[in-house]
């Protein structure tokens, strides 16, 4: 099955215009966003993630090029049509504490309701369905002021859902959330994309979750512009290194996380049968300024980790055994 194209951009130029002056943030952008896919937009601070999202949600005009949403140029949309096509979840402060969760989500029906915003049967059905979908139905009668941050974010996602848009844009929806809520929200978004065939694009700094649940990645950087692709293609083509072109940061392809580069003045060779143990052993050594080698070399220090309580260290031809990392590190740093 061929997936429907929801956003397509051709030679798009984004940035700010003040008078006749243009401040270009990015140009020659080409990308597509497909229905049924969750896409994460990653990038360092100040690379223009928000500018891109704002351009896509028509909060600010593009400076040039072509931008089509659902097969129609974005600037040809009327306000009403647009509000039924693009739903957003922002980081902006809201003042809805005195509304119930139900009323808040009901505001999302405004593109569909009449002059006074009265909710009819269909509106109520859609709202209740969305509350079930995001798992906040039990809070329907609570004030939004009483929600936790995670619940509030779910309510805002439900608000975007009841707009019944093919496209949902989210600006850092998991910022300020604890791990449990972060995972919950990402799972929720992935499920909504798949089940409801929505195109969902979100910006995030939560790379860990993005790599796990994102169908596609958009990497945005000053040096390389926008790079798009299936998550695993991006990773295995070694494009993650382009995201933060900083010599002190490297991407660990095995674990999918960024690490500070080790400038070890001391070398040590490490061996272990247990992969987890090896990983954390190297973690401890790296942090303490040792560069780890996997090949045994008689000239340098050598460590054999059999278990977390059996760490054999060979130093100057003398072997010692340590029963914890605390003791091992004490010996090494001495």
């Amino acid at each position, binding site marked *: 099955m061929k997936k429907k194209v929801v956003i397509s951009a051709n030679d798009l130029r984004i940035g700010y215009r003040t008078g006749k002056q243009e401040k270009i943030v990015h140009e020659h952008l080409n990308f597509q966003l497909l229905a049924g896919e969750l896409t994460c937009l990653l990038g360092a601070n100040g690379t223009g993630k928000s500018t891109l999202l704002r351009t896509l949600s028509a909060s600010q005009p593009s400076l040039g090029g072509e931008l089509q949403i659902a097969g129609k140029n974005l600037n040809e949309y009327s306000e*009403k049509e647009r509000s039924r096509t693009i739903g957003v979840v922002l980081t902006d402060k809201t003042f*809805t*504490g*005195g*509304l119930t969760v139900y009323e808040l989500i009901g505001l999302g029906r*405004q*593109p569909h309701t009449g002059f*006074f915003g009265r909710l009819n049967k269909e509106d109520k059905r859609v709202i209740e369905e969305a509350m079930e979908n995001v798992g906040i139905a039990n809070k329907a009668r609570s004030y939004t002021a009483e929600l936790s941050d995670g619940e509030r974010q779910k309510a805002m996602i439900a608000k975007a859902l009841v707009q019944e848009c093919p496209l949902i844009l989210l600006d850092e929806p998991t910022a300020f959330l604890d791990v449990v809520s972060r995972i919950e929200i990402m799972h929720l978004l992935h499920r909504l994309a798949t089940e409801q065939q929505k195109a969902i694009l979100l910006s995030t700094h939560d790379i860990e979750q993005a790599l796990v649940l994102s169908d596609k990645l958009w990497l945005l950087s000053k040096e390389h512009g926008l790079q798009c692709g299936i998550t695993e293609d991006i990773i295995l083509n070694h494009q993650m290194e382009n995201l933060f072109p900083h010599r002190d940061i490297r991407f660990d392809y095995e674990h999918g996380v960024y690490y500070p580069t080790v400038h070890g003045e001391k070398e040590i060779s490490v061996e272990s049968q247990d992969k987890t143990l090896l990983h954390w052993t190297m973690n401890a050594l790296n942090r303490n300024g040792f560069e780890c080698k996997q090949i045994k070399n008689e000239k340098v220090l050598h460590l054999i980790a059999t278990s977390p309580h059996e760490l054999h260290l060979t130093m100057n031809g003398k072997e010692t055994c340590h029963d914890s990392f605390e003791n091992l590190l004490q010996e090494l740093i001495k």
Partner: protein
Amino acid sequence: MNNKGITYSILLTVLILFLIAANLFFGSVDIPADAVIRSLWGEEVEKASWSFIVWEARVPQAITALLCGAALAGSGLMLQTTFNNPLAGPSILGINSGANLGVALVMLAGGGTIATGGITLSGFLSIVLGAFIGSMVVMGLILFFSTLIKSNIMLLITGIMIGYITSSAISLLNFFATAEGVHSYMIWGMGNFGGVSLEQLPYFAIFTALGLLLAILLIKPLNALLLGARYAENLGVNIKRTRNLLLISTGILTAITTAFCGPVSFIGLAVPHIARLMLGTSNHNSLLPVTLLSGSVVALLCNLICILPGESGIIPLNAVTPVLGAPVIIYVIINQRRIQYFN
């Protein structure tokens, strides 16, 4: 409107009818109740002056208070939502001092005094127009500053500063005005629901109704604005047009009340809070009607308090409204952690 909203609306309407009656029966001059009723029916009463007082003072005053209260409370609510600031209000943001300045300018240019000017339609219109332009200019300034100043408190302070500037402009005008003009200006500045005569009343009512109607038509975008401007825009609200309509509506309401009743303080600021606390919601579907009705109740009540001294005179309106309004604001500020609509 939800059930709670309907219940409160009915209750408040009954209260308003009761207060209107009280305003007709009681005044600084003692008139027997049956004489008041017979005057209202157009029958002869013992003293011709009683009939005159009922028709020329008490009736217009009660209706003026009714409309003024609704107008001020309504514009206060609209300002609080527009600026997403619970402490906004026509007097705090300097909007009614803008109207004052407009009125003062008209008065000086026309050579008349504020208190007596405008018995004719053209005189009435020029005063309203002056007040309207004055309040719109300040409102526009505040809107402009609100794009530059993100902090709510700083914006309020800016509004207060604008109020000071217009006040000093008015003082300057007073300096050049006649002693008589200054006196009538001072009287006017104390606030008074008796500023509208029976002949002016229809015009006054039409303008107020127009502003209130506009406010009611803006209920849907007002609700969207609770989410902030960008969310509202995403929900299909044309922010620029909505802000302009809100500006016109609050401008009309503040201008008309200020032109005739003086700069009445605190009703615009405090009443929306009373309504929110009663209803427990910031949903304008029920909040706006209840705010308008509560405004009328408070204004009619204040007018009654003003005539308490009886024969010896009338307490200035602006001596009464802060006593009722300020404690509400202090209560709200102290309890803001507990009150939902702040969070």
